[in-house]
């Protein structure tokens, strides 16, 4: 069976060699510049790739044919993943160790940016309030979302309408939402509150939490609704026959039955609150003063981590420092996600 057809082998080799040659040529054109066919380098590259894979496919082997097909099918995804995720990640880590300005860099500075960011009091403040924001929201969004879900699975009239209504804010973009609420706080609620809530740091922080809950609770509600409707009717019926009232049913039946949904929602709110950016930017853009934090006056009272990174890079034009902060941001989020995956997996085994 292992006999090899020499003509097929020759054809395959021809394709492989042509493919590599075309690839090499197009890359050379791109790097060196010039050449009469310079503007066709993209097409040459594509033909090179096709020829290479055609050669691979035609390669006369029985034992490896399956693997070759697998690779060919996987390649587009792997390539895209590499180009859009892996390479930018590596480049980002590299840039965080240089004095990159967004246009070019002149020297490698090692871990200086990382050291600098921990000496920046305003950054520590941003870290602190981001953690606070996450804790508040993990609790509040889930409470509100769960309460709404209970309402929306009860036998009230017009439940379908309410479900849609509560979910609607989630469909509005965060920037638009931020500006709408900024108007509300600065022009409408100001009649009640005297001074706009957005002018003092604590009240502005509370305002961001309120807007965030308004935006996100409907989404979490929808997940809880899905969880609650999967609680089997016979279990609930049995509980009712045993004389359990609504509160006991909720505590002893419904909540344990949707434990996995609660885990999912907790982590969803955790990661999304941690990444809070658009509402923060549109509503306060991080303003708000802190009179004395670690001996300093701070002017970024409500600036959360993502916005701090953005402002460091864009508005203060320190791309490398911003990139270093972004790497830290990535590490924190990656840890959270790993924990989440661990916990969800163990729960699945239990069920």
């Amino acid at each position: 069976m292992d006999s090899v057809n020499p003509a097929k082998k020759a054809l395959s080799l021809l394709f492989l060699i042509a493919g590599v040659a075309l690839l090499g040529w197009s890359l050379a054109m791109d790097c060196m510049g010039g050449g009469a066919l310079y503007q066709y380098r993209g097409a040459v590259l594509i033909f090179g790739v096709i020829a290479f894979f055609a050669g691979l496919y035609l390669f006369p082997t029985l034992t490896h044919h399956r693997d070759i097909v697998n690779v060919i099918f996987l390649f587009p995804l792997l390539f895209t993943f590499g180009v859009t995720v892996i390479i930018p990640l590596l480049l980002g880590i590299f840039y965080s160790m240089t004095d990159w300005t967004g246009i070019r860099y002149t020297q490698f500075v090692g871990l200086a940016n990382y050291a600098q960011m921990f000496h920046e009091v305003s950054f520590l403040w941003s870290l602190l309030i981001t953690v606070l924001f996450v804790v508040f929201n993990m609790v509040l969004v889930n409470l509100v979302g769960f309460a709404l879900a209970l309402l929306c699975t009860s036998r009230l009239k017009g439940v379908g309408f309410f479900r849609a209504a509560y979910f609607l804010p989630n469909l509005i973009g965060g920037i638009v939402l931020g500006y709408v609420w900024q108007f509300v706080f600065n022009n409408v609620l100001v009649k009640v509150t005297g001074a706009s809530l957005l002018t003092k740091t604590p009240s502005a922080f509370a305002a961001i939490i309120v807007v965030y809950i308004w935006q996100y609770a409907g989404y979490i509600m929808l997940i809880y609704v899905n969880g609650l409707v999967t609680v089997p009717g016979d279990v609930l019926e049995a509980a009712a026959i045993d004389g359990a009232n609504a509160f006991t049913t909720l505590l002893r039946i419904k909540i344990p039955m949707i434990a996995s949904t609660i885990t999912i929602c907790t982590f969803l709110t955790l990661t999304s609150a941690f990444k809070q950016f658009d509402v923060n930017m549109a509503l306060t853009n991080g303003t708000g003063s802190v009179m004395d934090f670690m001996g300093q006056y701070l002017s970024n009272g409500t600036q959360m981590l993502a916005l701090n990174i953005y402002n460091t890079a864009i508005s203060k034009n320190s791309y490398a420092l911003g990139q270093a902060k972004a790497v830290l941001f990535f590490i924190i989020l990656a840890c959270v996600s790993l924990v989440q995956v661990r916990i969800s997996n163990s729960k699945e085994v239990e069920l």
Partner: protein
Amino acid sequence: MKRWLSLLLAAVLTLSLAACGGGSPAPAGNDASENAESAADNSGGAPSANSIRLVNGKIEVDAALKKLAAMYKEETGVDVSIESMGGGIDIQGTLKGYYQAGNMPDIFVNGGASDFANWAGLCADMSGEAWAADTDAAYINDDGTVGFPYTVEAIGLAYNADILEKAGVDPSTLTSPAAYELAFATIDGMKDELGLTAVVGYYTEPVNLYWSTGNHLFGNYEDAGLDRDDTTYFDMLNNGGQLDVDRFTDFAKFVALLQQYADQSMMISGTYDQQILNFASGKYAFVTQGSWIGATMTTDDKDAYAAAGNFKVGMAPYAFQDGIDTILTNAPSWWAVYKDGNVDAAKAFLQWLTTDAAQEVLVMEAGFISPFNSSSYVATDPFAQTIVDYQNAGKTSGWHWLGNKEGLAQNYTGQVFNDYAQGALDTDRFVQVMQQVCATAYGG
């Protein structure tokens, strides 16, 4: 077999890495080969000798520029495509993206020293152009004359001339804090007869209006009353963010005076639109904005402005010390030519913009105040005449806040002005805090 597979994968990834590495810009270290590459990039892309692309930072004049582009196409056959950005878009960030993607426009907007510093070595020198001798507003740095000025703007305390006249206040006397105190008190006493809500429209909202306080008001501390090329206080700031305590304390006292007579309900969280609309409706005698509000008053707010009688306006100096009698004028931003772009065509287009036909559109339609001596057009903008008068009298200072540390106003000083207005800081503490945030901004 497994090993073979992973080897192949590694090879493919390396190849793709190489492919991507080839296209991305490299450090200044190997300039020569990179320049060759980006030049080649351009020859490979769409632009031909007969088209140029301009990134404009003033979205409000988009229509006028497109009209100019059409005129130029008719006259010379060269295609000029206008790409307008504005309304809070981060233009420099977008330009950096264009640069990374090898998609740089031939002419792009730069806002000041820090912007030009970013593009050092990448802007073409235009000192040989005829227009360069015709203006003193061009941007000049180590690379030569790199910035083409297209308009002049002025920062002063804008006032409603009709109201001042009715109140018997002569704006030409407003050159000392004492004179201001007297004038404010006089007008404040006649608020009801004059139909005023407040004497001064002073707004400090830090989220969207930080630039008014943090850049323009603060810019008066840096430049008011000084000669055009005097950079004493700007240099101090650049030297670790130092402030001159005496001068800044006087400045702080003047700001306190503005706060005292400001529209209290709007001072903390009012918006730019409300500020301009209220001034255009004749509800404030003064407003802490510069000449650019003229365009808004005669377009968006033209009904309110007409209802208030299309009153005459003028500009008074921010006289926080005795004898300050200048307003700040400068080009707010410049157009630079990308060195590896279509340089000759771009230069020709900019030169053409200074001709009579083009100046007419720029001044009469875009409302620009021509920085070119040879141009004889005066815009219909309410503030145009004031600026021309100050320029003719030699009573202008330069402005250097464009060269302040990036993000100084947005991330630091804007909030401090707001805290001062809220009363969270008194004058001494305001000065101290301002010293601290400037030191932080320049130190970090």
